């Protein structure tokens, strides 16, 4: 699992350690500087941001970018923030409920057509979602969902990933607990709610966080199905903001900061779930 650094010859290993940590720090700078620069710029005035060479610290420290965003009827950024929050939360809940029930059925119950159903669901994992955008647009148009909340909440929940992910987890649970519950007279619904779901909390949390992130960040779909400024979610809204402010970078960066904060906070809080979810999805392949 690890490659322990040889400790036999002191100076060589000391040098190696210095190089090792220097590499880590250099990489940290590469990954973090753009994000730090986004925050710094969002706190500058328009003129300070136009200055060449740019200053490393926002001087004067200005709320200009954020003020522009908060009082802006053409670009209601707070409204977009709220829309994104509601959409991502509802989407995540919808995925949890529908995928966990379906995965339970596919993992733990026996019925005619189970193999075919599962094969059909998994089969769609191999179809690039972008190739279904045109027909899906016609479907939501027929449903009169264009420019509504439903259009960014519901269609994405058809993704096979959640079902596939939870089914794998449910298959790994021991049978004994269910058997005991059955002997106690529990029906399948009670076993699902009282035994299986509580045991699956880590997997459910991982799926909830990943679904939230995906929905919060989705860009391609909402730019074509949401139009009214007050209906937009943040990603298409940011595109609009860039269109209206072009090189007024403090405003654009303030918008970017607002769109990044929730997911960065979520990442800090749920890092383990996100990283485990990603690595587990890799091992399945």
């Amino acid at each position, binding site marked *: 699992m690890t490659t322990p650094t040889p400790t036999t010859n002191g100076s060589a290993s000391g040098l190696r350690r210095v190089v090792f940590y220097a590499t880590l720090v250099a990489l940290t700078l590469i990954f973090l500087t753009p994000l730090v620069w986004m925050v710094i710029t969002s706190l500058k005035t328009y003129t300070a941001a136009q200055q060449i060479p740019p200053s490393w610290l926002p001087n004067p420290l200005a709320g200009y970018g954020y003020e522009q965003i908060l009082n802006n009827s053409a670009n209601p950024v707070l409204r977009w923030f709220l829309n994104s929050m509601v959409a991502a939360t509802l989407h995540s809940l919808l995925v949890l409920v529908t995928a966990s029930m379906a995965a339970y059925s596919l993992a733990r119950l026996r019925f005619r057509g189970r193999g075919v159903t599962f094969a059909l669901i998994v089969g769609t994992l191999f179809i690039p979602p972008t190739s279904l955008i045109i027909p899906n647009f016609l479907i939501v148009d027929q449903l009169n969902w264009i420019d509504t909340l439903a259009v960014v909440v519901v269609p994405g929940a058809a993704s096979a990933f959640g079902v596939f992910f939870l089914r794998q987890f449910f298959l790994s649970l021991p049978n004994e607990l269910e058997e005991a519950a059955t002997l106690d007279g529990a029906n399948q619904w*009670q076993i699902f709610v009282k035994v299986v779901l509580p045991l699956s909390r880590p997997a459910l949390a991982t799926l909830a966080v990943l679904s939230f992130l995906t929905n919060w960040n989705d860009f391609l779909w909402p730019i074509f199905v949401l139009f009214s400024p007050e209906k937009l979610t943040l990603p298409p809204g940011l595109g609009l903001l860039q269109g209206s402010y072009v090189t007024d970078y403090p405003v654009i*960066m303030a918008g970017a900061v607002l*769109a990044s904060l929730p997911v960065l906070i979520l990442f800090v809080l749920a890092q383990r779930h996100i990283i485990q979810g990603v690595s587990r999805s890799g091992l399945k392949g």
Partner: protein
Amino acid sequence: MADVIEVGAARGDAPPPAANAARRGASAGRTGRATPYLFLAPYLVLFGVFGLLPIILGLWLSVHQWDFQLPNRPFVGLDNYTELFSSDSAVYGDWWESVRATAIFTVLSVPLLVVVPLGLALLLNRSFPGRTFFRAIYFAPYVLGVAVIGLLWRFLLDANLGLVNRLLGVVGLPSDTPWVTNMPWAWISLVGVTVWWTSGFNAVIYLAGLQDISPELYEAARMDGANAWQRFRNVTVPGLRPVLLFVITTTVLASANMFGQSFLITQGAPGTETRTVVWFIVEEGLRDNDAGRAAAMSIVFALLLAVVSIANFRLFRYRED
């Protein structure tokens, strides 16, 4: 339709009646016949409407001339397909330009997105204080959406005001590179940003794979006098093969589906040279109102990707033998 979905969900939320019936049946643990289907129902409604129906509808659209503005949608056979391959059609030039852009981006980005994250993973696959911290830092850009990183990098790569040119100037390199408007810089920018954005993701997948390789194998190799490179070549690489296959396949698919980076950072520039297939398809289908032709393009594109994925699988399977 919304009603159907709500009904489905509501039915699922209540205890399925069949389960109660089964409990009263002769043997405990027997499941009511309808129970498995009731559990599946809410998801299957979603899957049917937004997962399966679009596939069928896409095939149907692709053989019709389907304009949002026009009442008649006549059957046109394979015309939408043949147009893509006949050089005298109106769409031919733009379509193949977008295929070319997608191919260039995929060929340039995939090797880097396979190798750089492997380097990161090998670096992080040691035990040292702060390991989890550094892993989180390298992964962090990935949690941001393409809209955020697109706006951010459009700014960072701005020829005059951008930080990238400023920093290059500080170290004495040319500080007026037109990163987002000229070739070859536009491709370098798009690939570079994508590597910065998604390397952490692949690195985490590699890390999980590395931790599945038994330490005893490394120990045995060391006993046999294998040096670091030989241990990498003969223990790490074979141990990572399934993960490598997964990473390459998903990365090829992700790169081939690139859209947001060029839409926001280069905005297709120069000209429409960095307009990708996905971008061209949605533009054709949703902006230019030709859903039939766009559907045909989607299907050709999906088939191309399928061929590439299958080739990838075969290549790796043969190597394993």
